[in-house]
């Protein structure tokens, strides 16, 4: 035992460094913009979740005499829509379905696409060809068309539109995951891990995932807004949400007739979609730079 490493022995072996993810969390908290976005998203999410307990007006109760009231009308803080329903209530309740159809398909596709991309990128060779060429088939169709086709085949309904959107996003995420994985896979530290006798799963878990997830995650969060728009498109065609139901995309569609009568109120659902997607984008950007601990 050389003298130089003697003090190390006094440190109990258990005291591990705070760990990679703790470091990332600390760095993320220091980024004000990310924190702001997280707060906005959390507010929208919690409001949607606890909507019935917020003392809001009935989002389904319309009235012919108070249609399209402007923003700031007493009792109707954000005005009313084309059927005289309270916009604030509809926006808050609308968040429930919009966030569901925005986040859930991307989340599911993120899991499936990352898995496929990791396998294709790490295995290479024939398996890569099989997975990636299959994925290429899906790229032949525009995503809207693909979503409509799958949704139409499965039948109308929110669950089916979630399934169809998931299928639309899997190829895109797989593509990104594969290219990132291929890049990381050829680095020497993966070779070194193989040389130490680790099996493929251990290498994937310890050495690949942490280096691959960041870019895929950023890409996936960018898809959330696309997912919300596509979902509203499906609703418009009668394949997703049905009209009385509040949903941002659907509201945008039904309010478009009122765009000249009351443009500000008509734009509100769009503002919500915009706010949520930009917050997701900025947050994922912040997360990516927090994960890149080199700076």
């Amino acid at each position, binding site marked *: 035992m*050389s003298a130089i490493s003697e003090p190390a*022995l006094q*440190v109990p072996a258990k005291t591990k460094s705070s760990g*990679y993810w703790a470091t990332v969390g600390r760095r993320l908290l220091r980024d004000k913009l990310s924190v702001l976005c997280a707060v906005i998203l959390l507010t929208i999410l919690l409001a949607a979740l606890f909507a019935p307990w917020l003392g809001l007006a009935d989002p389904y109760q319309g009235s012919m005499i108070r249609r399209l009231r402007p923003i700031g009308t007493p009792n109707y803080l954000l005005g009313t829509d084309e059927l005289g329903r309270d916009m604030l209530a509809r926006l808050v309740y609308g968040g429930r379905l919009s966030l569901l159809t925005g986040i859930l398909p991307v989340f599911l596709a993120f899991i499936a696409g990352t898995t496929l991309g990791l396998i294709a990128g790490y295995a290479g060779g024939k398996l890569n060809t099989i997975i990636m060429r299959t994925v290429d088939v899906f790229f032949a169709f525009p995503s809207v068309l693909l979503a409509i086709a799958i949704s139409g085949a499965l039948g109308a309904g929110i669950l089916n539109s979630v399934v169809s959107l998931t299928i639309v996003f899997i190829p895109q995420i797989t593509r990104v995951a594969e290219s990132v994985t291929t890049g990381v896979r050829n680095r020497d530290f993966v070779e*070194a891990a193989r040389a*130490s*006798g680790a099996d493929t799963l251990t290498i994937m878990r310890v050495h690949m995932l942490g*280096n691959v997830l960041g870019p895929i995650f950023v890409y996936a969060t960018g898809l959330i807004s696309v997912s919300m728009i596509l979902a509203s498109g499906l609703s418009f065609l009668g394949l997703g949400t049905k009209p009385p139901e509040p949903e941002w995309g659907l509201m945008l569609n039904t309010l478009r007739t009122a765009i000249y009568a009351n443009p500000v109120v008509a734009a509100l659902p769009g503002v919500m979609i915009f706010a949520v997607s930009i917050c997701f984008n900025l947050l994922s950007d912040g997360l990516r730079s927090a994960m890149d601990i080199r700076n």
Partner: protein
Amino acid sequence: MTDAAPLAPLEDLGGEAQALLTVRGLTKHFPVRGDLFSPRKTVHAVDDVSFEVIKGETVGIVGESGCGKSTTARLLMHLMDYNSGDIIYDGMKIGRELSLRDLRRAMQMVFQDSYASLNPRLTIEDSIAFGPKVHGMAAAEAQTLARDLLGKVGLRPETFANRYPHEISGGQRQRVNIARALALSPRLVILDEAVSALDKSVEAQVLNLLVNLKREFGLTYIFISHDLNVVRYISDRVLVMYLGQVVELGPIDSVWGEPAHPYTRALLAAMPTSDPDNRTQTAPITGDPPNPIDPPKACRFHTRCPFVEQVCSTVAPKLSNIGTDGHQAACHMATAGSGHSRAPQQDATA
């Protein structure tokens, strides 16, 4: 010692007399995809390479880039499959008597790029402890072992253990890589250009560290480099490679003192000297190495050799003994009765 007992090294089976590593006829061809109308081609990366590594020695492998040095290293580590040949570790054929998993314990490798060979998202302590954990060591124990090894490679564990690779210098990173290789208690360490990317002063420190570690742990090294001075300093024997083949091998003094192959001579002549009275006199060999997709027939060096004769492009020279000390060269000029006008019985000097 501490309570973190390192993994027990594999047992010495054959004793001193048995070579630690025997390589016979190692061949690796990479297929290159041809286009629609031309057939598939192959890159002859390593072609029929044979050598032995004796226990406790350092074997240097030299040659210009693209000659198959690094491919040889990866083949020895079984990081890629080889087309044919045998790799025998201490009398055990790998894949038969010795499992691949045990081979990982027996042989480790240090890569050239000290940064790329460490996971940027793991602390250096975790990087070192990864191997032992894979081989079943408890996490806490592996951690202590990692700190022990950091001390052995000259890095204070309390300062460095929790740092990330980007936070330390190139020389320090290469020390970490060495510690990582030693964590599995290997008997053979392959150093693939391990000091080439370092500053001269740092390079000297790391070389000295390697020499000390070799003594302390009873290691055997395969030292791959293009730096002839470094190879001379550290090696007992040397292997000169050209286009995937061994052209000359033998004890370092013998090869450096009396190089028999014109390629070795050219390599040594191209070595810059720092002695103004002993300037480089001979002209360096010209041209680039030929394309390994379609290497020259017979002697692969004949396209660049100043002594080329008819026989060189028709008959492939075999490694033949030059002295009694194991010095061998694959050159018709060194083989008696080869038909080359400079072959030993006529004119041995050039």
